[in-house]
Structure formats: C-alpha cells, structure tokens
C-alpha cells in the first residue's frame, strides 16, 4: 500500500505521474556545522578557497588546501555520498582532459607511445589543472549542497550590493537568477508533459526529433508559451505584493556568529600556510 503523500504526488501531473525530477547539486537540508554557517561566510570562503587553489603550488600548497577540503568535507559527512555521485562523472572528464593536456603540451618527452609524445611539462600542467578544478568543483558543490538558493542569493546581494551605487540593478538580477533556478525542476516537468502530449497525437519525439525542425517547434513553442505565461503571472503577483517599491528587508536576520568566526580563522590559517609553503619555502 502506498503512503498518503506518495499517493498525492502520484496523482498530480506535475510531479508523480511523470517521475520525480533530478536533484543535481540541489540544496539538502541538514544540521551540520556547514549548514549553520552564514551564507555570506560560505560565499566568501568559497571565493577564498578558489583563489587559494589557483595560487597553490604543487605539491606543497595543494596538500595544505586538500587538507582544508577534507576538514570542510568532514564537517558535513552525511553529504559526501551525494557529493561523490555528482563528482564521479566529472572525475572522468578531468582525467581525460589531463591525458589530452599531457600529450599536446610541448616539452621534454617522457616516452613515445605510438605517435603520441607525452611531455614532462604537460604532465605537470595536467596535474595542477586537475587538482585545481577538482578542488573548485568540490568546494562550490558543498556550498550549493548546504545553502538554500535563497540564502545564496541574499549573500550575493550583500557581497555585490555596491553595484547598486553605480545604478546596476544587481538585486533584481540576483532575484531573477534565484527565481530562475527554483523553476528549473518545473521546467523539466513541463518538458515531459509537452513531450507526452505531442506523442499522444502521433509525434515520435525520440532522439531523431533533435534533427527535425518541425518536431523541435512542437516541443519548444508550447514550452516557451507556458513559461512566458508563468513569468508574467509571477511578475504580476510579485508586483501586487509590492516588489520593487522600496528597499527589501529579510525575514531571517543573518548574523556573523561564533561559528563563522571560527570558520574564518581556520580559513585564514590555511590560506597563510598555503601562501607560505607555495611561495617562500
């Protein structure tokens, strides 16, 4: 017997009928220290770690930064399986690109394999780029996994608020992006619905539809129309609730707390050590 909630979603065309939507890197609620950090701390922290990763020398600086990565990961252990699932395909990509870089970069030849000549310089470059990209993807994934999209938007708004002074509507841009992202699952559902509807009246809409202009129109035009309609409704409903008529305030007061201070201190220590070992040792 099905539970009441699954019965409900089963009956709604939006969700259950067409299968559940993917949860790629989307926010997962939790109570880990990483969740409790202020979004702004995490945002700046991510930027700092990215900069650190770009600056770190191989291998000394990288060891320091990966140690930090490990520490951060351990503070949200329960997310690591989900993280691994999303990183695994990227790992393959990183390795493939690494091989490509090793082969195409000129330098002191390491060996001769058929017509390919992997070089020492290429290998160094590949390892550095690979380690950098993995750390960057890992850190940003942890950010989006532990921070609700709205909090990320608020953090960005705070960090880039100075752009408002030069009359760039950064707040609106961020709201738009944040709303856009929350509507992605709905867009996926809508796409499935249109595909079913067009197939119901005889269209194939399999992979070969990508090459068929008419089939693409059958898919894209209803989708576009539905989304324009939804956008317009949303804009009206936001305006009717006074969006844009003044400064926005936040319902949840965000505070730089003790945990944030601790995180900042740890980050600072690792950054200093990284710079020291990378440039002065």
């Amino acid at each position, binding site marked *: 017997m099905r539970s009441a909630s699954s019965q409900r979603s*089963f009956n709604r065309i939006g969700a259950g009928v067409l299968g559940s939507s993917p949860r790629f890197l989307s926010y997962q609620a939790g109570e880990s220290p990483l969740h409790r950090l202020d979004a702004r701390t995490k945002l700046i922290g991510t930027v700092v770690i990215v900069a650190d990763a770009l600056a770190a020398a191989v291998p000394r600086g990288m060891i320091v930064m990966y140690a930090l990565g490990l520490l951060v990961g351990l503070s949200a252990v329960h997310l690591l399986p989900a993280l691994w699932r999303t990183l695994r395909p990227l790992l393959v990509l990183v390795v493939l690109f690494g091989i490509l870089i090793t082969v195409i970069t000129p330098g002191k030849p390491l060996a001769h394999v058929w017509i390919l000549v992997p070089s020492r310089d290429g290998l160094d470059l590949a390892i550095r780029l690979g380690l950098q990209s993995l750390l960057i993807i890992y850190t940003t994934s942890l950010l989006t996994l532990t921070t609700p999209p709205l909090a990320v938007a608020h953090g960005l708004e705070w960090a880039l608020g100075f752009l408002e002074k030069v009359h760039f509507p950064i707040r609106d841009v961020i709201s738009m992006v944040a709303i856009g992202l929350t509507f992605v699952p709905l867009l996926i559902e809508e796409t499935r619905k249109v595909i*079913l509807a*067009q*197939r119901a009246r*005889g269209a194939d809409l399999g992979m070969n539809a990508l090459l068929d202009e008419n089939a693409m129109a059958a898919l894209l035009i*209803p989708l576009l*129309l539905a989304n324009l309609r939804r956008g317009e409704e949303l804009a009206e409903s936001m305006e009717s609730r006074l969006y844009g008529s003044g400064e926005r305030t936040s319902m949840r007061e965000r505070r730089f707390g003790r945990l944030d201070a601790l995180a900042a201190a740890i980050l600072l220590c690792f950054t200093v050590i990284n710079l020291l070992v990378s440039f002065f040792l």
Partner: protein
Amino acid sequence: MAVLEHTGNRSLYVDTGEVVSVLGAPGSGKTRLALELAFLVRPEEGAVLFRGKNPMTKGKRLQERPREVTLLVQNAEDQLFARTVFDDVAFGPRHLMLDEDEIEQRVNMALETVGLDPAEVHDRSPFALSGGERRRVALAGVLAMEPDVLILDEPTANLDPRTRNEFLSLLAPLRGRSAIVWLTSSAREAALADRIYLLMDGRTREVASGSELLADWHVLADAGIELPAVYELARSLKGLGGALPAESDAERLKSEIIQSYRGRRAR
C-alpha cells in the same frame, strides 16, 4: 472483443462504437490512467491490452506504441504550436506518412467534425483563435489521426459554461467512429456515456448508466464528484438537519425541497 482493455485494479474495457466514461474526483488518478491507456507511460499495475494483446511487452520501447490509440490531453490547446491551423491539425497525420491529398482530406474532415469551417480557419494562426476554438483545433488534431480508440482527459476542464455545452454537443458526431474513453469529474458529463466506471481509491467499479447513475448520488458526493446543483443543494440541506428523503430523480428531489421549504415557512 474489446478494442482496449485495462486489467488489474483499475480494470475497464471499451468496445468499438462505444462511449465509456471514467468518473473520478480531482486527484483520483484519471490523468495517470489516461496516459496508461494511451500507452504513453507503463501501467503501474495491471496491463493495457489493445485488441486483446499487450503491445508493450517487456523490451519494447514506449515509442513503438500503437498509433491507433490517441489521447486528447488536459488543456490540449496549450500544445498547439504550428504557424497555421492546417499545419497543426496535419501534425499527427504527417507522422503517419500519408500523402498530402489524404492529409488535406483528413484535416478538413476533422475541422468540420469539431464545428470549424476549414476554408475559414485553414491559414489562420492557432494563437489568434479563442480558447474554446483552440481546444476544438486540438481535438481536430487528434481526430485527424482517425484513431480506433480516442481517449479524452477532462476535455471540458477550464472551459466557460457555454463553450462547455458546445463542446459536449461534439460528442454525437464522434460516436460510432472510434471507441471513446472519456475521463471526467462531472457526473452530468459521465451520464452521456453508454457505460460508466467510477474511479476511486485506485480502483474502478462499473456503475449504472444514465439517469440511474444519480441514484447513487450519496456515493458520488462522498467520492468528491461534481453533481448537478439540485443534488448539491439537497446534500447541503441535509447537512443542516433537513430531513430529506434519499430521492434520486432530479424533478422529485426538486419538488421535495420546495415542499419542505414551504412547510417551514408555514410553521
């Protein structure tokens, strides 16, 4: 032998030339059932048989579904996309690899069946039509496939009362051409069918047809199904403590209500 049949808890069948309605409250799983019957999703229990055979046996792709079964999805007018009404209605037949003459003939027939003048609407943009007309065009698009089985998923949902009645009058010319499965949440609409299934708690049950259907109006009301106003009124009055008999005939129910109202006023 039934043209289309669903086995399992939601068993139902439809014969050639027959109109069968499936009556279910909102959220009872009508849309899912419609998709299953049209071989657009795999049945979550039971199997769907077309002419006694299951065309979607294991390993078959859903793309290979029988084209003889078509579905008019809910709010089908949202799926129109072509530059002209003609192209939109011809969308399905073109996938059947028919020659242009045959396609044109089918499109004209289909447009006439839904009460639109082919010469007038041919070259118009579907987006320039009214909501009711757009839904007619969507129906024409399905009819032009000349299906053996036509499944209609709440074809009158979100239409204004007048357009709804116009749409209901289209049922008559469709009769006899294809077997029709009509999914609806309105008892009044369901009563137009030859046979009626009630869909409730993931099960179907065949119920008496036509005016007899409303004899079960207590059951229907409890199942959350939209009833004609007199029955709704009777139900509300009963809730207020009015001792109304379990009348089913609309006329008698009406006079009962009037009498009891007069009786109260007299007191």
